[in-house]
């Protein structure tokens, strides 16, 4: 990731922010629509949550060595 990649992402986000303020609103509004950048936060924390929950489950029970089923035959 170079600097201009990050700048592009920031510009993209600013663009969506402008669109959400000045563009037409949703046909079926939701309670969370009034929070600015709601979906950005949702995406970021959703991603982190997904990774940590999955990895936690994997470490706790789900991940086994590749010969697991062969050893237990």
């Amino acid at each position, binding site marked *: 990731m170079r600097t201009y990649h990050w700048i592009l992402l920031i510009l993209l986000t600013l663009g*969506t922010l402008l*669109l959400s303020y000045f563009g*037409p609103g949703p*046909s079926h509004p939701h309670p969370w629509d009034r929070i600015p950048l709601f979906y950005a936060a949702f995406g970021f924390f959703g991603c982190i949550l997904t990774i940590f929950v999955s990895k936690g489950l*994997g470490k706790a029970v789900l991940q086994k060595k590749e010969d697991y089923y062969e050893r237990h035959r």
Partner: protein
Amino acid sequence: MSAIAEMPPAIWLLGAAFLLCFTRNRISSALTVLVPLGALALLLQMDQGESLTLSLAGLELQPFQLGPVNRVFGIIFLLISAIGGIYAWHVNDRWQQVMATAYATGALGVTFAGDFFTLLVFWELMAVASAWLVFARRQPDSIRAGFRYLMVHFAGGSILLGGILWHYHETGSLLLTTLSPGDGPAVWLILVGVCVNVALPPLHAWLPDAYPKATVTGAIFMSALTTKSAVYVLLVLFPGWEILVYMGVIMTLYGVVYAVLANDIRQILAYHIISQVGYMVAGVGIGTELSMNGTVAHAYSHILYKALLFMGAGAVIQATGVSRLSDLGGLARKMRPAVWLYMIGAFSISGFPLLNGFISKSIIVSSAGEAHYPVVMLGLLLASIGTFLSTALKIPVFAFWGKDPGLSVRPLPATMYLAMGIVAFLCILYGVAPGLLYGMLPYDRTYHPYTAYHLVESIQILTFTFIGFWVLREKLAGARYIILDTDWFYRRGASLVDAWFVHPVNVLFTVSAFLRGKVVESASRTFRNPYHWFKMNTGPAWAFLPDRERPYLGGIIVWILMAFVLFATAAFLV
């Protein structure tokens, strides 16, 4: 002419499967592409509402009926069969071609079935024919996985059959109709049987178990046909069942969690089939015209981009011989066209605007919001984060742009690229011109995917998922692990059943065989010379030597005569 034009598509494919038993090489490859295309052309000309009825042993059957819903499924099944045929053009394996075509026959038979009997027959055909595509890889673990796959599908088919018989007993009709949750246990049995093929957790483990072990070309058919034909059956039988809304959301998230952990690239994609089918199941459960349109549209889109993803992963496996993410890397420079074609599929499944995943997934998500399921809507959006994370970030960043472990790359047949190119083109075409897909949908509900709101929603989620991934990307690197899933219950369960039920029986048989041997041995020792019992033996005790032990013949005759006289006298006196 009209009789030929009105033949159900399944018949054409069945004929092709039969012909493929005798043809070879190019002719076989051409048949696998041209027959589905021909059947597609005929299907497009058929009038909706057309049907075929048949009376068999007093049962009213409807082996073919064409409606607005199954027309769309039929079109995409035939289209993907033809494209799968192009992808597999180089495969010179007669039985794989026969079975892939028979498998498509099964899917189309299910899709156009008007009654439960026809449905069940084609359902089982699908199970058997698709299992062959796993066996055909001819690796020991493929063969074992193929048997597990077959067993699970036979079990599911039996539950479905049980439900159908019960339902027939109660209603006296075999025709497919909408069922309602209050109709008694029969319909729930049918639901369970169908949900095995939908891959609804916990009945799903056959899918991520078998799909990564199927042949490179067979997996394309598998990714398209089994689950989506079952989604169609759900749409017909169980629309508006609220339990399916929640099961659908669980499915989407379940697949996502496992895909983060999986290491085999096709297993990651397989878990995302479960996740994506979850959207469709939720759409069936919501049961509004918009959500059911969404389910049909998403099935159509999903088949395309998922086939493209499996084709890309298959290309990697065919070229490198490696399927573990932890062993892959640096392919972006070595397999540039395949990588970019894969990326189109990956961006599509992630719901990037201008690609076909966006135009169909957003219908289901919006319909959840419209039908006042806000939590469901957020659950589905959360799953779309995970989809982007695993298919478009985890696989590409490590396998394509990751550190090159020095893999050698074999060249691929041009037909594989051609097939991928066609599907990628369709993914873009439907994304840019959603009207092409929306025009086919069964219910007359207008929907606009490219609203400011949806664009803001998608772009913000995708951008910040990427940022989250970039922060934590080290955590997602593949590692040489497998993940336990519900197949644990029958794979480990098998050894427990073996320990508790098979082993004791074996011990019993071994012990009784040993005892039987001992008894026979001692009996034969005891009885080999009865003279020895009374110490009357003149020869050795261990053997009866007739010449030594046998009494004079005269003596025996005297004894017999004496006995005869005795009986005769007794008879006279009495």
